[in-house]
């Protein structure tokens, strides 16, 4: 196995591991509003998240940027809470500011926080070279995210179908709106609990 493959495997394992629930939950929060036909919007948002975390990961590993672990670990669930609340507040994205196209911007900004979270555990792993392992780790993270998002998308489609079936007896909200609120509120509550547990004061 090459160095690149080794670190790509490590990145994939890190994101696809159930122990990495905070990152998985953030991806769930990001994906919660999208339907299969919105895949382009979802791709933009996830790509922006990837760019964000790649930037801080590179800065932190090269020690250009040093961030306090306790603050970062607190901010990670906050990004999930904010995303979950935004999902629930914005009912019609076409009428939202910038027609809802600000989402990739905040996904990128939140990616900066998550990247710092990865870096806090990764910084010590680079011995005599940085570029290749870092690239490998990022590619692994990206592949892991795609795997997680595939599972999340399939689950959300299943949830939509279940809600539609129940909806035949009459629902106040549309099935999609119900899915967004149900998933987002659950994710928000869980992340809020983490934020309290990790508060740095």
């Amino acid at each position, binding site marked *: *196995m*090459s*160095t690149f*493959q*080794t670190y790509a*495997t*490590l990145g994939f*394992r*890190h994101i696809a*591991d159930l*122990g*990495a*629930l*905070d*990152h998985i939950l953030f991806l769930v929060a990001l994906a919660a509003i999208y339907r299969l036909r919105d895949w382009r919007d979802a791709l933009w948002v996830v790509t922006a998240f990837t760019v964000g975390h790649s930037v801080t990961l590179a800065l932190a590993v090269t020690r250009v940027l040093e961030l306090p*672990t306790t603050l970062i*670990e607190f901010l*990670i669930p906050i990004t999930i809470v904010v995303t979950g609340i935004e999902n629930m507040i914005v009912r019609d994205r076409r009428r939202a500011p910038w027609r809802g196209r600000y989402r990739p911007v905040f996904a990128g900004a939140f990616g900066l926080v998550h990247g710092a*979270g990865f870096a*806090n*555990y*990764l910084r*010590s*792993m680079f*011995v*005599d070279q940085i570029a290749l392992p870092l690239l490998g780790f990022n590619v692994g993270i990206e592949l892991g995210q795609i795997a997680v998002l595939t599972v999340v998308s399939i689950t959300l489609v299943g949830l939509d179908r279940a809600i539609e079936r129940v909806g035949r007896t009459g629902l106040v909200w549309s099935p999609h709106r119900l899915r967004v609120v149900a998933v987002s509120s*659950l994710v928000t*509550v*869980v992340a809020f*609990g*983490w934020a309290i*547990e*990790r508060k740095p004061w």
Partner: protein
Amino acid sequence: MLQMLLGSFTAAVVSTAAAAHPLHTTITQLEYTSESRTLRVSMRVFVDDLATAVRRQSGATVGPNHALSDAAMFAYASATLSLTDRAGQRLPMRWCGRRQTGDLVWLCLDGSALRGVIGARVDARMLFELYPDQVNIVQVTDGSHRQSLLFTRGDSAKEIR
């Protein structure tokens, strides 16, 4: 019923994942010098993890700031990292010191490999007894030849090619 299930799920997730997700990884560099036919192993591990593992393995006393004796560290390193040559003979290793920087410690082992390292087998089981998600990376260098080996719990020895 649904509320109860959701409540239980939420409570379980909050309690299990409240702590941040660490990356349990050790990195070992294994460098072979063909001129002298010698091996130099540099194993890097978090000192607190090493102290816990050594205490569990041997019952050795751990001093303040996870201070361990060289003998205890060598015993643990040689019990969890093994190298066997192509004939299946285990390569004996000697202790060549340690260096600590912050919360990381580098353990140094050296030995000789008269037949070279290509075709030899490596097994790296450090800290598997502590963490189910432990990953051990072994980076092998033999002149310009480089190879990385990745070990997770349950893996068997791997060949250097």
